[in-house]
């Protein structure tokens, strides 16, 4: 691998890791919001 390939790989890793972490938080928020809405509806019905 030449110098630029190492530089590209390192930067790709940085931004992929950060993007995955952000996506994980976003997915968690969406899932919890849906679950909270479902539970609120269930409590309102009873």
């Amino acid at each position, binding site marked *: 691998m030449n110098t630029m390939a190492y530089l590209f790989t*390192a930067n790709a890793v940085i931004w992929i890791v950060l993007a995955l*972490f952000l996506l994980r938080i976003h997915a968690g928020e969406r899932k919890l919001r849906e679950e909270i809405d479902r539970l609120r509806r269930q409590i309102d019905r009873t």
Partner: protein
Amino acid sequence: MNKRTTARLDMVLWGVLGLAMIAALYLAFVDAPRERTMGDLQRIFYFHVAAAITGMTAFGVNFAAGVAYVARRDRKWDRLALAAAETGVVFFAIVLITGPIWAKPVWMVWWTWSPRLTLSLVLCLLYIAYLLIRRYIEDPDRRAMIAAVFGIVAFVDAPLVWFSIRWWRDIHPAPMLESGGIDPAMRPAFWACVASFELLLVYLLRRRCALESMREEMERLERLAG
């Protein structure tokens, strides 16, 4: 703080963060001069070192939040401690991956068990253990207290990582910040990367704490729903 103010604050933070990231990328890859010995490979350092400093900041936040939880027993400190540990692990994972990518063409090896590298790995593993411990304790109060104490003890490794290249012989590059060894033309790129990652840390901590608050709200509703 109401929901509207929080959303507006997040929007402002997101905008400033975006601009800071663009500026950091421009300074690191376009504006900063090419290093004489390593060439463009040295540009890995801008984000590698920034990630290390930000990871250390996150572990410092975990330590402070742990101390605050032990003193006050307020769950908001436990949420912050968890968010900081998780974010710190992410930044240290970046450090531990980009370091070897730089080391291979320069040192001719991916990894060597030097004090700085070994202690950095141990630090990251300690906080992974912190996150795992949290998963196996059901009672929230007990979990928060054990995690706070574990986080406080784990942070002992942080100053060892920081000072290892000053105290022991190490293959890792010497500290540039205190010795003034960094070229003045490279300083804007370096500090822009540090500032943008620290801003990103603030953003991630806010999002991660909010996620944890939602999880607690869901658990409360589950108890109500029976």
